[in-house]
């Protein structure tokens, strides 16, 4: 064997090894999702079987049970109302602030956002609980939406600063010369230009509002309970049907996966609030 072909064989070997490692690493990170989805098609007995079964006749019984429960549909609606409400209201608050921070260098404001991120949810929860009870906001959509603003406003503001900074200032100056007011510049020039960013920021905020568990655990009641709380209560109190739990978990996670596919690279930027400039 010549030296050249030997080197080539070595290169191919290395490539193969790399792809093997890659598949292994990705497999580890994806496996729990695969397992969750797989188990939602098993019966309770198949799930608890040991050793674990990989081959079985899939059943749709679990998904049917979850929907037949009635609660699931209602709490899905609650989750939708709360997360979309928090994103919508978060946009109203966050967009002008982001624009001001991008155009007028209001960097002091960034500190407020950083603090929002640093404080654990539980720290907000004690005072909120007391105040919300006093104001009669416990177990109300409005109270939950306001609470989730702590998640959505920092995310939306942080991401949108970057997008607003990319709007060419010349365009805005031209509009000013044509007699457009500053508010008009924001509404008619800047906002339409950042629409793609708006979508990313909105979806990202939606994911985290959708995933939220601690706030609704305390602030929501029978009327407004959201999906993560429902799934948790499936596990602890209501019944111990593992198939149903897995099916419900899969159904909650599915929209998140779809949303992740939609936002992709803005995702990391959203998570690096106050730190890395991504």
């Amino acid at each position: 064997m010549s030296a050249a072909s030997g080197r080539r064989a070595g290169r191919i070997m290395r490539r193969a090894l790399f792809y093997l490692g890659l598949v292994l690493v990705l497999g580890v990170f994806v496996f729990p999702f695969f397992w969750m989805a797989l188990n939602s098609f098993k019966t309770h007995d198949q799930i608890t079987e040991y050793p674990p079964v990989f081959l079985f006749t899939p059943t749709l019984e679990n998904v049917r049970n979850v929907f037949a429960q009635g609660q699931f549909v209602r709490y899905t609606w609650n989750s939708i109302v709360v997360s979309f409400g928090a994103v919508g209201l978060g946009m109203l608050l966050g967009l002008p602030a982001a624009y001001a921070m991008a155009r007028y260098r209001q960097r002091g404001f960034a500190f407020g956002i950083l603090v929002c991120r640093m404080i654990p949810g539980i720290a907000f929860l004690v005072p909120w609980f007391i105040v919300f009870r006093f104001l009669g906001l416990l177990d109300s959509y409005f109270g939950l939406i306001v609470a989730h603003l702590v998640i959505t406003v920092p995310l939306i503001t942080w991401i949108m600063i970057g997008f607003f900074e990319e709007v060419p200032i010349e365009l805005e100056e031209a509009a000013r010369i044509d007699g457009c007011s500053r508010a008009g510049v924001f509404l008619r020039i800047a906002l339409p230009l950042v629409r793609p960013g708006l979508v990313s920021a909105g979806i990202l905020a939606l994911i985290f509002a959708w995933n939220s568990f601690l706030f609704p655990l305390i602030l929501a009641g029978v009327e407004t309970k959201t999906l993560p709380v429902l799934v948790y209560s499936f596990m602890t109190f209501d019944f111990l049907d593992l198939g149903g739990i897995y099916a419900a978990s899969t159904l909650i996670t599915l929209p998140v996966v779809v949303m992740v596919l939609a936002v992709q690279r803005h995702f990391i930027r959203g998570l690096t609030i106050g730190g890395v400039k991504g």
Partner: protein
Amino acid sequence: MARPLRHGAARPWRSPAHGLGDWMDRHIIWFFILPAAIFLLAVVAFPVTYTVWLSFFRWSGSATAPATWVGLANYADVLALDPGFRNALWVTIYFTGVSVTIEVILGVGLAQLLNREFIGKGLARTLLLLPIAGTPVALSLVWRNMYNPSSGIFVWFADLLMLPPQRWIADANMVMPLLILFDVWQWTPLIMLITLAGLVSLPNDLYEAAQIDGASPWQVFWRITIPLVRPTIVAAAMLRLMDSLKTFDQIYVTTQGGPGIASQTLNLYIFEQAFQYLNFGYASALLVVLFFVILAGNLVLVTQRRGQT
């Protein structure tokens, strides 16, 4: 003071009340900032202040039995007497210290591995986002069941490797490493992806120079790559540290702090004090202490960051 300019047809969307419109225009920044500022004050600053205030009281949250002023007694209890607090502080430091360290080392290593052209790079990046974005409650349920001592998939792996049977998350000595493994699984991709973004932006000429000088890959990694991406790594570690100290959902759903109090972090301990025992004053004092723990944790890394620039 200049008179407002005359408005012709060229300004169709100006409001008819010129004086007001101009005044708004000059102070527009306040209209942009005000909504968010009011939100920050009402929903963030006020609760924090109220928590500090509440920490000087003893109160069960009852509307009929008013809170009693106890001064610094809550703090004295927290710092001197409370074994629950000491346990929770230790569990928190253990959890955060170990998991963030592993995540940074593993994340940087794997990022280095992925920093090349290969088929399916985009797909790999997307898949790596899943653990970060997945609903924590759902993921915790899966992990909890994977750790189940009688039918979990980990038990099966351990059996395949002929390891002696364990009680897994029911074992007070095993529960923390298992929760850390879950956390490492969930958050290593974040460090990976942030580091990867940093690696991609590194200048190529340094590497070419090193190659010409005959540096080994190991030397290149330690002498060139690491120093260059260090600011990114430190920033990523800091973000992770901040979030790690906030971890609640995963631990609450997987173990509820158990067995016993073996995995009860400060977050869970405060949750229990506030919403199970209704010791709102005491919980508030704990929150103030937690906030200092978070500040201290971040200061350690901030000085790190300063030290190298």
